[in-house]
């Protein structure tokens, strides 16, 4: 198979987009000094609220808006305990992820009236760029044609985040707060509000990611459909540190692994190989990065949580 063939590149972008969006949220938290391991639950909640709002309003765009709002609100489950009460963010995240799993499965039965998977011909999904007239354009047509507009928004958000962190007052302050909160506090910067802001922004991004997952990649909601993508986003943040482009690159690696897994399945390998491939590749990337860092420093690498 040719990995440069447009259909494969298209599949990589489709698989990577939600992970990049979630990881970008994780990056903002990491920059602010909060370790956000709740991305998995937030992504799931985003997917669920997107489908519910699309179902209720009949418009995928209302679904997107609703998911962004609802997931930003849901992020308070992490931000209030972890920032205001300074509870252990890892423990809170374990709880918040479980809560999202339970809430979505419960509300799905209450609101959508089914368990397992919800899909309906009447459920409005996001349009593709091909529908917007991009399909006929050579080269980029086959790559971007099958994508939703959110896939196009994703690199814009990555670039915006990179620029914002470097070139704005609030971006600089967020970096300072993450590096040394006491010092930032003694300069009169308000650590709490910045961190709340970062966690809520991560929620909004996870809402967008969930909307892309449930209304862009497919048009359905199923229980646990985030399927570990939030954890992969966490790993991407560990690999890319506080640099948005690196984090996005790590997510693209995951997207390639997932697309590759589908190809394997197409080539006759069992579905389980496709399920496992992204995680195996992600783990190998972590190991390679850890080993490289160890070679460079001979001491313990700086992959660990802040």
């Amino acid at each position, binding site marked *: 198979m040719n990995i440069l063939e447009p259909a494969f590149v298209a599949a990589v972008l489709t698989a990577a987009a939600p992970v990049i969006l979630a990881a970008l949220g994780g990056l903002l938290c990491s920059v602010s000094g909060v370790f956000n391991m709740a991305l998995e639950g937030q992504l799931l909640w985003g997917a669920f609220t997107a489908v519910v709002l699309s179902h209720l309003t009949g418009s995928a765009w209302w679904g997107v808006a609703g998911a962004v709002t609802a997931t930003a609100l849901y992020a308070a489950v992490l931000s209030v305990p972890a920032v205001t009460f300074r509870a252990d963010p890892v423990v809170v995240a374990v709880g918040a992820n479980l809560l999202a799993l339970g809430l979505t499965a419960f509300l799905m039965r209450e609101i959508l009236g089914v368990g397992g998977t919800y899909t309906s011909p009447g459920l409005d999904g996001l349009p593709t760029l091909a529908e917007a007239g991009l399909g006929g354009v050579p080269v980029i047509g086959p790559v971007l044609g099958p994508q939703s507009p959110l896939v196009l928004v994703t690199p814009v958000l990555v670039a915006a985040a990179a620029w914002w962190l*470097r*070139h*704005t*007052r609030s*971006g*600089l*302050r967020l*970096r*300072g707060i993450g*590096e*040394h909160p*006491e*010092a*930032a*506090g*003694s*300069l*009169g*910067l308000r650590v709490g509000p910045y961190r709340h802001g970062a966690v809520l922004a991560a929620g909004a991004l996870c809402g967008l990611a969930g909307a892309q997952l449930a209304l862009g990649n497919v048009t359905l909601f199923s229980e646990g459909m985030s399927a570990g993508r939030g954890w992969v986003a966490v790993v991407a943040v560990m690999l890319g540190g*506080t640099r948005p482009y690196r984090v996005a690159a790590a997510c693209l690696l995951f997207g390639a692994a997932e697309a590759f897994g589908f190809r394997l399945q197409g080539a006759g390998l069992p579905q389980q190989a496709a399920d496992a491939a992204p995680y195996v590749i992600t783990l190998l990337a972590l190991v390679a990065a850890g080993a490289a860092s160890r070679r460079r*420093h*001979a*001491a313990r690498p700086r992959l660990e949580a802040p």
Partner: protein
Amino acid sequence: MPAETPPAAELVGITKRFGPVLANDGVDLSIARGEIHALVGENGAGKSTLMSVLYGLHRPDSGRILRNGSPVRLRSPADAIAHGLGMVHQRFRLFPGLTVAENVVIGAEPTRRGVLDLAAAREEVERLGELYGLRADPSAVVRDLPIGVRQRVEILKALHRRAEVLILDEPTAVLTPGEAARLFEVLRAVTRAGLSVVLVTHRLGEVLAVGDRVTVLRGGRVTGRFTVAETTADELVVAMIGRSASPARHPGRRAAAGTPYALEVRELTVRDRDGVARLSGVSFGVRAGEIVGVAGVAGSGQRELVDAVTGLHPPGPRDAGAVLLSGRPVLRREAAVAYVPEDRHGRATAADMSLAENLVMGDQRSPGLRRGPGLSAAAVRDRARELVGRFAIRAASVDAPISTLSGGNAQKAVLARELSRRTPVIVIEEPTQGVDVGAQEQIHALLAEARDRGQAVLLQSSELGELRALADRILVMYGGRIVAQIPGDEATDERLGAAMAGTAA
């Protein structure tokens, strides 16, 4: 100074109490415009507390603060900054991953049409650097800079915020003599421009070299005010430590020169993760029944030496040389080496474990504490009760978390644990830091007793008086090497000081 100009900053009748400890007791301090005002005193004299009050970190129980003659309320460092006060802490408060320019402007950033003006920030760093001789590359990342330059960034940060009174807390503790001399030039330039400097220190040499006036604190009270031109070191020492002078000397019987070393370090070279040598060719030995002192400016390699000797960081593949314990190389933490670390909270105790559990660490595998396959809770408790009694540790219960003990009692607990094991070798860092004078003498007696029992003691301390009182020999470290070895009874502050500065052979 014309009489009508009010002082740049004035503290009146400041009293501050922490629980039972009276840290400041009715302290008055007046800082004139354009002067370098030294604030001196021994550890625990209340200097840091007083400066924390002036910088808005602590609110005084009573007393007033005036700026240019008018009273101000400082509820936070941000308030202090707004009132033209700037502070350079002993532990810098920089953002290691940000550039020099970003560090200087953060919180008071120049912007152009809402966008951060990094060019203006760089220009500001260069302008201030030019003005006061504080050169630093504005684009360098702080993490990569040497300590001396980081300190300049701290000063630039305060100047950028238009500080008129600059407080420096023990600024030379981490500097080489050359860097310190450069710092003093900066301070002179700053005061020539009309700013005021408060120099907090316990080094009298620097006070006499750069200070205009001195205020001396002892036990939370002012015990002397002097004009530098009209005072002497002796006068300042008397005000600082009172009549009792330096701690009583505990001379040991000279260990026979022929006896083998209990602890020996041979040609030890240790590199950090970037490959820079932190110890270079260090060799020495400690015999049973001997206390060997280690002196040096902070960061001269003492920490790396202690980590290697205690087996916490045994020499690795990139290092060279060996640490020998009765002739055998030390490759891991050895039960035969007792160790009292400087970092009580981070290393010597586990805050959430009980006092009893803290008191057996390191000895948990000894048969005396076992019962069958298990660790006998009764034996652990008995051991703890015995140590609590013998070392007069004040604790509500041996089952309460050690975090419920006061700092001095926690230190006694650590000492009790390490000294009671009667190991061949004891390594001890800063044994009396943050401990009151009475306990200090007790601790010194305990160490002398251990030595007289035949233990080999390696004592690292930044208190020269302590080293003189206890050590049979004093090793002076500078730049990762041992630059002098001085017998305890021949060590004077001058000789030690010259060696610590790296200027004496």
